[in-house]
């Protein structure tokens, strides 16, 4: 028993070191922007005084919120329907959602550009194309999170119970299925948010302002600011996911997904 405890502590400490050492090193480097001054917050001051930082981060925030909304509206009903009526289709849907792992982002983007550059669907100048691309990127995370959530509840019986009480499909989906998938959807949302906020390829090749290309630009042209930016980006992403979690989780007692005790 005692031996197990020691090993548990060792594993925990190694995990913490693996996670925090790079962060501490980055922080240490970002605080050396001025010669003979330590700590110097000059790199952070430069970043925060740059209007492009706010513009790009704001854009990425907007893209991620839109991606989350559209992705949730597409993935949740689709996955629900696959569970409820088309269980044989699950492998096919799973295969499609794995596309971003198989096809590199740059190939996906050029594919989108070629397909939507001209008639009949000239969407190249529309942000819809960027959002659609981001949705594809979010597929594996959203699908897997929602799929796991749906496996934890008795989809068929809950649907039929609601229907027998007079519920139509909209009510079933929004009042019965969605609330019981809140935790699962939130995990998908966190991952989607984290991916979209720092995404580079889509935004850069489709020429939309975003945080990813901005970080890339700073990295190529400055020394200490990219380190400060990495920490700011990390903190903002973490902070944003915590806000989403706080908003989404609601009251403690409601998070129980299903089953008896």
């Amino acid at each position, binding site marked *: 028993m005692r031996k197990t405890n020691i090993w548990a502590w060792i594993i925990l400490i190694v995990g913490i070191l693996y996670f925090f050492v790079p962060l501490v090193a980055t922080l240490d480097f970002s605080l050396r922007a001025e010669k003979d001054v330590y700590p110097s917050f000059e790199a952070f001051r430069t970043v925060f005084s740059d209007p492009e930082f706010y513009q790009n981060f704001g854009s990425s925030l907007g893209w991620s919120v839109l991606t989350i909304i559209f992705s949730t509206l597409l993935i949740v009903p689709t996955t629900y329907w696959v569970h409820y009526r088309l269980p044989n289709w699950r492998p096919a849907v799973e295969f499609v959602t794995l596309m971003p792992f198989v096809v590199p982002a740059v190939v996906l983007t050029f594919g989108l550009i070629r397909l939507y550059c001209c008639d009949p669907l000239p969407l190249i100048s529309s942000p819809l194309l960027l959002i659609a691309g981001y949705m594809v990127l979010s597929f594996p995370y959203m699908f897997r999170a929602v799929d796991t959530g749906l496996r934890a*509840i*008795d989809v068929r*019986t*809950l649907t*039929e*119970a*609601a*229907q*027998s*009480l*007079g*519920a*139509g499909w909209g*009510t079933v989906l929004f009042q*019965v299925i969605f*609330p*019981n998938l*809140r935790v699962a959807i939130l995990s998908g949302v966190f991952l989607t948010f984290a991916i979209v906020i720092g995404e580079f390829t889509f935004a850069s090749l489709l020429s939309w302002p975003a945080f990813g290309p901005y970080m890339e630009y700073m990295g190529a042209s400055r020394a200490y600011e990219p380190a400060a930016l990495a920490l700011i980006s990390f903190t903002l992403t973490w902070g944003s996911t915590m806000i989403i979690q706080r908003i989404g989780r609601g009251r403690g*007692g*409601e998070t*129980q*997904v*299903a*089953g*008896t*005790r």
Partner: protein
Amino acid sequence: MAFLEINNVTKSFSQGTAAVKEFNLHIEKGELVSFLGPSGCGKTTTLRMVAGFEIPSTGHVSINGEDITDKPPNKRNVGMVFQAYALFPNMTVGGNIGFGLKLAKKPVEEIKQRVDEMLSLIHMPGLGNRYPFQLSGGQQQRVALARALAIRPAVLLLDEPLSALDAKIRVSLRAEIRAIQRQLGITAIYVTHDQEEALSISDRVVVMNEGRMEQVGTPFEIYNFPQTEFVAHFVGTLNAMSAEVRDVASSQLVVQGQTIRAAQKLEGVRAGDTLMISLRPERLSFAADGKKANVIQCMVENITFLGSIVRVQLHLGESLLYMDTFNNPFLELPKLGDKAEITFSAEAVLVLSPSAAAA
């Protein structure tokens, strides 16, 4: 015209399997009818066709004269209780019970009043703010029942509602369901594979096998006068054996070389034909306690003490017979391997229908 009519309903699935074949049943208002049968006999499929979750391949379902065959489930006003409770985990008990009323856009005051009424009905007053995960299995199923009843459905459907509960709660809850059903006078269909449950709770029982109705009758008729070999075997314990017709006029039969007489008239058979007959274990007794019309010689194979009854396993030639006798502390039981004279009345001999015997 009956309140709920299921006329010539069949259900075939895409793989070509016929789950329900030529099902006809008329249920009167306020009646509780059980569908009893083994797994895969089509009882749940039939129930789901009444609920609207399955569409019949042929035939019609009507409630109170209105054909509902093609109506979606949410427009049928049919309450359903599921084996898996199916309470909405994100809603409180009150929220669950009031869900259907909220959808029907009832005023808030009315919903509150009905929820309280239902909570009293299921003996759970004051628990409206609990969440399903804070309740026991029995309490969850009571809430599911209250939720189905709150919308005042035309018909209440119960799909093996007690299967997930332990034996003691099952017995008390089934009595409670029956009491509530009687109190509200609601028409109900109860699906179960548990014969004791079906016999104890129902006005009528439909015994099903391989998608067909084997027999419809009161629990008394089903148990005492099974019309097919399947019903005889499925409901209760049964001694079934083949018998040769000796004399049609006097209903004399020969079983394992011993002559017995049935009270039932033998129809459609001739002397020398073979029939299937059955005897319920509780209709047999030791001849020493008083002889009846039939007396046969058997050998005691085994004796099992089951509390209120004692089950004696007997050899009659090559056939095995079970005999149930009430336990009493002064009962003198034979020893294993002893010869025993067993007696039973002519009425106890059930001649199963020739078609079933042939099958």
